[in-house]
């Protein structure tokens, strides 16, 4: 079947913060750039980022990039690569000032400088005390960033293909990536986007869990495409959980509720945090509270019909305090938990929030597939943002570092694309089978007359991840989780949809998204089962401590044969002394 083809210097898949930052730099260098996006760019999940972007501007008190680097290395539980972390922290001020010059409406100090506020984990003088490092635009930093970058891209003549879904990468026999095959949702037209450079910026895949704060669009499309093209996924066992998402919905309940005196109860009405953290109780750090909640549920003390959630009690604060100090909580509890929180507790569970792992890249955004000690760059393929693993977040991300990550590495990847295209200007011949894989996936969905329900397989995947690979992990449960996920991988090959229409067929889109989610989920489960230590977000009951002798290693999962490979963490920064691993206490 002949399919249409268009040629671009660079194709960027995804139009969130990292995709837009990369595309802007490419378009301003006069390259012909296409950006593919499932949704209108300003509706990307970056819009949900509230906290701000970290940069050691020092606008309110002394600060410097080396302190920021220390915080990030420590926050990563020493799994972050220190060359990448130095690179990011040194580039942070420039990244923020560039955004300011693009028109980003940052909050200001009275004398007109960018206003900065403190954020958890960000400290002065190597952990001495809080520092004001976060640059924000009220509680809508991500929203403002997307709008600013989108407008600049329009000005720079980036070509947007909105409501196009990228299906698969095109690789030739030499392993070079030559573009993507994508489908227009309105017509079901499939087209080859041939490119000298292909940049994945598809964001995270938090929808692999039943309890997720992520929007529905976060289905790991770049991870699925990479995995199917033979590119490994790195450190997928590390997912950040927030303790208080509304059970069954995922919507976040702010930590401020516990700050104001709310507390957690199990089904027996016991304030169980007194047992786990006798001093600070419900105000212990996110991971401690999440682990305690998971243990209560696991040991049969969860509330609800199936003992599946914990209760967040705040009615004792009184309606007046709730309305005054916690604006919006009443309406969120009512809307998403159907609970009047001035009278009854809110059902909550630890909820998946952020993906630390992803497509392996170096600091120039080049994707690589390690082969023994050889880094083995995948020529023509780049990645940035939450879908990538540089790795700056290691085993645990600090707040406000995600927006910084996407700005710095979005631009850095674009700079590398420009360098690579300058050396190698010609389009390479496409292989004859360039579109075979995605066309076969589509043909199967068109022709199948029976098979597995997309909704049921998706639900089984989410249940399995939630039950066997959640915030607190148990060896037998992980092993069972691997068996169950491998069964899900088989089932997803046989999904079936009744609707064969071609105009905005959302059933088919969801089937295609599920293919990507399942790659993410199985890589997570297998990587987690194999890592025999506890570090950052990966917490195992049978190996409760960090093991720096054996596990200062990044995990690489290859789809073919579900093979795992490891590579030592880069402890050597670019120019400064290494931060050696120490216990992570705050």
């Amino acid at each position: 079947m002949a399919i249409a083809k268009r040629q671009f210097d660079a194709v960027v898949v995804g139009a969130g913060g990292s995709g837009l930052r990369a595309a802007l730099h490419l378009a301003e260098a006069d390259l012909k750039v296409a950006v593919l996006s499932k949704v209108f760019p300003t509706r990307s999940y970056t819009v949900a980022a509230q906290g701000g972007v970290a940069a050691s501007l020092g606008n309110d008190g002394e600060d410097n990039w080396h302190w920021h680097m220390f915080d990030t290395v420590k926050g990563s539980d020493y799994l972050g690569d220190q060359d990448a972390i130095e690179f990011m922290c040194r580039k942070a001020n420039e990244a923020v000032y560039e955004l300011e010059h693009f028109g980003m409406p940052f909050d200001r100090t009275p004398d007109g400088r960018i206003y900065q506020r403190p954020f958890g984990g960000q400290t002065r003088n190597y952990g001495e005390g809080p520092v004001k490092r976060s640059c924000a635009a009220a509680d809508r930093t991500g929203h403002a960033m997307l709008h600013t970058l989108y407008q600049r891209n329009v000005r720079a003549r980036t070509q947007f293909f909105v409501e196009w879904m990228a299906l698969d990468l095109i690789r030739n026999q030499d392993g070079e990536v030559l573009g993507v095959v994508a489908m227009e949702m309105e017509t079901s037209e499939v087209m080859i986007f041939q490119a000298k450079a292909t940049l994945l910026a598809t964001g995270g895949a938090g929808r692999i869990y039943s309890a997720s704060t992520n929007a529905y669009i976060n289905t790991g499309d770049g991870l699925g495409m990479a995995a199917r093209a033979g590119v490994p996924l790195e450190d997928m066992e590390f997912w950040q959980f927030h303790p208080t998402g509304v059970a069954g919905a995922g919507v976040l309940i702010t930590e401020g509720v516990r700050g104001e005196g709310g507390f957690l109860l199990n089904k027996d009405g016991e304030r169980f945090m007194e047992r786990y953290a006798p001093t600070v109780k419900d105000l212990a750090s996110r991971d401690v509270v999440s682990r305690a909640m998971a243990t209560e549920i696991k040991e049969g003390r969860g509330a609800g019909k199936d003992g599946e959630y914990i209760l967040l009690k705040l009615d004792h604060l009184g309606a007046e305090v709730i309305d005054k100090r916690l604006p919006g909580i009443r309406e969120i509890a009512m809307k998403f938990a159907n609970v009047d929180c001035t009278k009854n507790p809110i059902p909550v569970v630890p909820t998946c929030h952020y993906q630390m792992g992803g497509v392996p890249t170096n600091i120039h955004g080049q994707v690589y597939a390690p082969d023994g000690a050889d880094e083995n760059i995948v020529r023509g393929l780049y990645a940035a943002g939450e879908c990538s693993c540089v790795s700056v977040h290691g085993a645990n991300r600090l707040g406000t570092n995600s927006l910084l990550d996407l700005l710095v590495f979005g631009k850095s990847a674009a700079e590398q694309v420009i360098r690579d295209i300058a050396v190698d200007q010609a389009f390479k011949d496409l292989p004859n089978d360039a579109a075979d894989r995605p066309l076969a996936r589509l043909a199967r969905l068109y022709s199948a007359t029976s098979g597995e329900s997309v909704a049921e397989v998706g639900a089984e995947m989410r249940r399995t991840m939630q039950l066997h690979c959640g915030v607190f992990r148990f060896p037998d449960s992980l092993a069972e989780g691997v068996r169950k996920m491998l069964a899900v991988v088989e089932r997803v090959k046989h999904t079936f949809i009744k609707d064969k229409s071609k105009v905005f067929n959302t059933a088919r889109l969801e089937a295609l998204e599920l293919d990507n989610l399942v790659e993410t989920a199985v890589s997570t489960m297998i990587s987690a089962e194999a890592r025999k230590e506890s570090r950052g977000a990966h917490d195992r009951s049978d190996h409760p401590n960090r093991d720096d002798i054996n596990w200062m290693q990044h995990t690489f999962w290859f789809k073919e044969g579900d093979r795992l490979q490891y590579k030592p963490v880069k402890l050597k920064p670019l120019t400064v002394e290494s931060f050696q691993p120490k216990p992570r206490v705050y």
Partner: protein
Amino acid sequence: MEPATTHGELGKLRWHCRRGLLELDLVLEQFNNRHLEVLDAGQLALFKELLAFGDNDLLDLVMGRTAPADERYGALLKMLRTP
């Protein structure tokens, strides 16, 4: 009764309910399951207008944090707010 719109147009509207904020995904999914296929032409036109709002502005309207500038949206917003 003639359907107010086609299968493809309904699919497009459903897709336009995929947002950057989970809160909106949930609200809009529930609304679609209850109402989308029985909206009349006038309601559909208004719904399309609402979906053109930015995510945070739309969420503010849905949660009742801001009042709509155009009172024509009132009835639809009430349906969106119904738990």
